[in-house]
């Protein structure tokens, strides 16, 4: 009724045997104190190591350097990766959005050219959808794509582009027909981010680090062969990109914050009203409820794994993970900082790479977590509309359709 098949357990054992010798070089401890540049460089080496061992692109076709396995193996692999703190996050976007779209829509020659280097970590890809005036409202993009013979000329600006400063290519959606209704005037391309006319400008976030970017396109020329899908199909392909991995491995139940153990330890070391804070009802409430939430997310994740293993689509409840995890992070981080009192003020700006080990950085990063990858409000809309079948919001932008 519950256990994974012997084949999957054997696969997991192979993964563990592969990963364990690499912990010293790539694990959480090895990454402490690295700059973002150095951590990304380490991540490239880890990606290359995985590729050499046949563990990169587990779900991708073998002919393009993948392993030809299914999503369940991918989920198990990511669980083990996360457990060791390996630097895999930098390639998540690259390999779960742009590259799968290349695999679906590009020519065989293009796939052979672009997919293997991406799997080896030699090239990174970005997703260029959001613009200054359009975040959640994807169809409102203004970046223009104008036909010029066999080419297109791109001009405009994208923003919130994660790790664009390290990226070589990206997938982009631009307005090819300004006269068509909003959702039908878009076309989808891939683009060389090192080409003339492309300017990448990192954005400094509230915690001081630079993970997002503005990307400017000043008359950037791309061949029509780099168009993916039909002219005018850009909105559909953009949504498809966001839907590719409906179930991404959510192996981190702490909402990406420090483990609950760290709060428990702090509560035992800290005196509150003449006794350990771990005996204070308010603190115990936070600890107990965070544990309960983690249990729930963990059970939801495991159920999804079992569904995948049974060849079924996971239930939609996995979509609440980020919403709930981000809330849990806030409660745990604030409780921990409160226990530290004025010591909680101490802040290491270089800790932005490790919000999982640093409560102040975890708290600092929490507002970003509520917004990045779909705001809390959009996630609730999605739950209400897609899962519960409630009607869409009032949408005057769709009135003309």
């Amino acid at each position: 009724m519950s256990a994974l098949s012997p084949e999957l357990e054997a696969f997991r054992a192979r993964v563990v045997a592969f990963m364990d010798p690499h912990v010293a070089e790539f694990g959480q401890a090895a990454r402490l104190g690295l700059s973002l540049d150095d951590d990304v460089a380490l991540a490239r080496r880890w990606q290359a190591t995985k590729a050499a061992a046949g563990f990169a692109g587990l779900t991708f076709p073998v002919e393009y350097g993948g392993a030809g396995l299914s999503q369940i193996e991918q989920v198990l692999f990511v669980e083990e990766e996360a457990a060791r703190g390996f630097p895999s996050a930098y390639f998540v976007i690259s390999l779960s959005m742009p590259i799968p779209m290349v695999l679906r829509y590009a020519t065989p020659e293009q796939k052979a050219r672009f997919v293997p280097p991406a799997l080896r970590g030699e090239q990174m890809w970005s997703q260029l959808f959001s613009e200054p005036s359009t975040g959640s409202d994807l169809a409102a993009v203004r970046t223009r794509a104008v036909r010029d013979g066999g080419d297109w000329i791109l001009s405009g600006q994208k923003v919130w582009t994660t790790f664009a400063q390290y990226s070589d290519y990206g997938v982009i959606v631009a307005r090819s027909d300004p006269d068509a209704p909003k959702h039908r005037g878009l076309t989808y391309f891939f683009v060389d981010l090192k080409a003339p006319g492309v300017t990448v400008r990192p954005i400094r976030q509230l915690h001081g680090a630079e993970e997002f970017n503005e990307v400017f396109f000043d008359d950037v020329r791309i061949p029509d062969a780099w168009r993916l899908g039909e002219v005018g199909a850009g909105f559909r392909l953009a949504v498809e990109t966001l839907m590719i991995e409906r179930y991404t491995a959510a192996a981190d139940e702490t909402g990406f914050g420090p483990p609950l153990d760290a709060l428990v330890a702090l509560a035992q070391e800290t005196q509150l009203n003449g006794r350990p804070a771990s005996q204070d009802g308010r603190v115990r409430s936070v600890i107990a409820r965070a544990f309960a939430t983690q249990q729930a997310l963990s059970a939801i994740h495991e159920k999804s794994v079992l569904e995948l293993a049974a060849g079924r689509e996971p239930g939609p409840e996995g979509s609440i993970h980020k919403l709930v995890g981000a809330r849990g992070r806030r409660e745990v981080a604030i409780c921990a900082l409160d226990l530290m009192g004025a010591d909680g003020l101490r802040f290491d700006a270089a800790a932005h790479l490790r919000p999982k080990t640093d409560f102040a950085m975890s708290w600092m990063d929490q507002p970003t977590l509520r917004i990045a990858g779909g705001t809390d409000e959009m996630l609730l809309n999605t739950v209400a509309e897609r899962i519960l079948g409630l009607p869409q919001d009032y949408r005057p932008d769709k009135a003309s359709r």
Partner: protein
Amino acid sequence: MAFLLDDDQRQIVREAERLLADNFSPDRLRDLLERTGSHDQVFWTACRDMGWTAITIAEEYGGLDLGPVELCLTAQVAGRFVAGAPFLSTSFGASEALRRHATPEVRARLLPGLAAGETIGAVHLSAALDADATPQLRDGALHGALGPVAAGLQAGLLVTLAHDVATETDVMVLAELDARTRRAPVQTFDNSRGYADLAFEGAPASILTTADARKAALDLLAGVAVVVAFEQLGVAEACLERARAFANERQAFGQPIGKFQAIKHRVAEIYVATELARGTALSAVLALRDNADDLVIRAGAARLCAIEASELAAREAIQTHGAIGVTWEHDLHLYYRRSRALALELCAAGRWEDVVAERLVAHHARDLTA
């Protein structure tokens, strides 16, 4: 820990849904609210006819020898229809105590009655979580008082903690409730639960366990809490469905109210809480099925999420309905009452927060010394 339902389990759920939907009478439940000490006999007869009273009991005692998973799935469906009696979970507490602690002779004498639903069981185990004085056990007879006890009015068997005068220790006892126990019905806001204050005037009682009675009682309480967590999950699901349906149907300002984010986000939040409750409940019932060492902490997590989900769902479903939701004729107050009753019946949330936190702290302390 997680699992997927197999075909047999899905069949159990379908049958329970069909039967309870056919027998569901909110009017009858409303009527019970105005009478102290009654329960829904139609519901209970259905439970007995379907063999739900026998689910977890071994075949040799007239049971079906299925596991707690099947009982919990049934309890979940019962929760959706505001079960008109508490006996599925309270009798489970009694039969489970017998299974774990009684001699074969006692099991053979008492389990068949529980399996057939002829005997109703009750538990009162809150003393496992605090140091309250317990009834006294003297010469095989119980003295003192307890209450309110769910199913206390109807129960023939009660499992509770008592102070054994002979050994001056706390023990877990099985009391047979006959004329030597006075039962006073208690008027509450959820009257179909058979709540009663019990006064023991020499009720015959036998010791189930002396060794670490408090731990045994907590383990038992945790098991019952898992079953009740599924009932609470059912309450949350029913309220979610009603809020969802109303938000789709009800028109205001020229559109369904579900189009307004203030409404749709509220309904979505009920879904989120309900899924968290489902996740922890599934995890806990596996611990119960497997006699896992971490049953208590998993049950605690399930209880916290189940209380949260059922209460949030009931109150926000009412809010979604507006004024019709606060009328006597509307069904939602049945769920509202039930959500609070179940939150109080098996020790309130704060106690369970302590249970969970204490275990995490102790676990951490062990890691430090290891």
